[in-house]
């Protein structure tokens, strides 16, 4: 049987991405269905992540599936020394699809190799988080009407920010122009800049963050600058306020510009920005529900046509 696991979407073709976007769009029109009635979705959170877990569980519930799982590895056999393989093998006997979050990198790929039940990677350490990438792509597509030829400005922690790295790789086929705005200590790693050069993706690096430097952005992707990332705390004190977005910085920006943030935010977006028409981070989180409904269906072999012709919609 073909393994329908979703460990990474970095290598998905444009057609595959478009299908998932169209599926998410259908779910946005009618999120409540009984398409997965009789199915069991397991959510195995070996590492706690309330936001991602709630989003996946809501997606499964709104499609009529039932959910089993755990939210804290301390209550499972992994704390007794059970291997990941054994846990996955055991749960495979019960569930039709396994959503898993793990602190170790590569855990989801390994899990997908030891079972025939499809695995959805809900984050493996600092490695991959395809459902976050998918909801980012969906948010960009929905607000801009296209993924092609966009000016995408990434701001803040570009060194450790997993979401910006995944987004960068997934956008490479759509001719974006990236602007990397960060302090020196948290700038985009060489390997991703090399990746851009290698794939003919244009990028500009900037240190200054103000109304002029973001005037051409279509998407402003904000991330958190965390104190613990700095080896030099004086440097942190110097830059910590330099990458905060305020409402008065939006006076020159393009009409279509939208602000994204993977959330949770701390202080990197001032609360006065929330009322701006450019603020999109809460809708972005909501899009996560539709993106995850699409991902769950994809792993279960449910096609876009099945979703369009779905007779189980609850209106």
């Amino acid at each position: 049987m073909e393994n329908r696991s979703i460990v990474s979407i970095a290598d998905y073709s444009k057609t595959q991405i478009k299908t998932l976007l169209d599926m998410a769009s259908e779910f946005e029109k009618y999120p409540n269905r009984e398409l997965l009635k009789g199915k069991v979705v397991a959510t195995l959170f070996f590492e706690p992540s309330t936001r991602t877990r709630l989003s996946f569980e809501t997606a499964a519930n709104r499609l009529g599936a039932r959910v089993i799982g755990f939210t804290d590895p301390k209550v499972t056999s992994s704390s007794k020394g059970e291997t990941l393989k054994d846990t996955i093998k055991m749960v495979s006997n019960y569930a039709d699809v396994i959503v898993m979050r793990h602190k170790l990198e590569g855990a989801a790929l390994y899990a997908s190799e030891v079972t025939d039940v499809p695995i959805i990677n809900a984050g493996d350490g600092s490695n991959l988080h395809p459902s976050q990438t998918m909801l980012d792509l969906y948010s960009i597509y929905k607000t801009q009407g296209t993924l092609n030829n966009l000016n995408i400005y990434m701001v803040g922690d570009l060194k450790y920010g997993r979401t910006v790295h995944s987004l960068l790789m997934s956008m490479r086929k759509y001719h974006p122009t990236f602007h990397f705005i960060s302090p020196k200590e948290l700038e985009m790693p060489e390997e991703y800049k090399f990746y851009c050069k290698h794939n003919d993706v244009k990028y500009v690096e900037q240190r200054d963050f103000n109304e002029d430097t973001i005037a051409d952005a279509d998407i402003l992707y904000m991330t958190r600058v965390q104190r613990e990332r700095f080896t030099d705390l004086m440097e942190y004190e110097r830059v910590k306020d330099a990458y905060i977005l305020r409402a008065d910085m939006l006076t020159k920006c393009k009409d279509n510009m939208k602000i994204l943030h993977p959330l949770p935010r701390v202080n990197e977006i001032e609360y006065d920005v929330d009322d701006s028409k450019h603020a999109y981070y809460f809708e972005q989180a909501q899009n996560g529900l539709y993106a995850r409904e699409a991902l769950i269906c994809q792993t279960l072999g449910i096609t876009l046509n099945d979703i369009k012709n779905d007779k189980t919609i609850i209106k």
Partner: protein
Amino acid sequence: MSKEQLMVAALENGSVIDHIPTDKLFTIVKLLELDKFSEPVFIGNNLDSQIMSRKGLIKVANKFLNEKEISKLAVVCPNIRLTVIKNFEVVEKREIGLPETLSDIVKCPNPVCITNNEPMKTVFYVERHNYIHQMFPYEHELNEQDNAKLKCRYCGKEVDLKEIKLK
């Protein structure tokens, strides 16, 4: 034969590992566990070589390297030569190059990689992209070991061949 030449008994059956960098000779002895081997083993180092000025050489009787051992040799020092002898005849002679994939040969240097926390095999892909050549276009004298990187199948980390540890 002049007195200056080294005399070593011809092998009836076995393997000859030649063109070994002199600083890697004993690493290979250890890697192949030749110190525990009970058949005849000839080990020479700092021998004259036309190709590499000085070299190491190992002749080992009644031992034929398996693919795993050959892969390990390739990781430790690419470009060494392996000759297989059967009934005093050379039946195979080849330069050992890096394979495309290394299965359970090397350890991932990333402590939070799943392979270091589960009883499982490691898998590394050998990447021969011209990364280094693009960064230093004027360096032409780079050999395979300088040029190759290994990429972990699981965590995706890339590591220089020179920095890896065998499993």
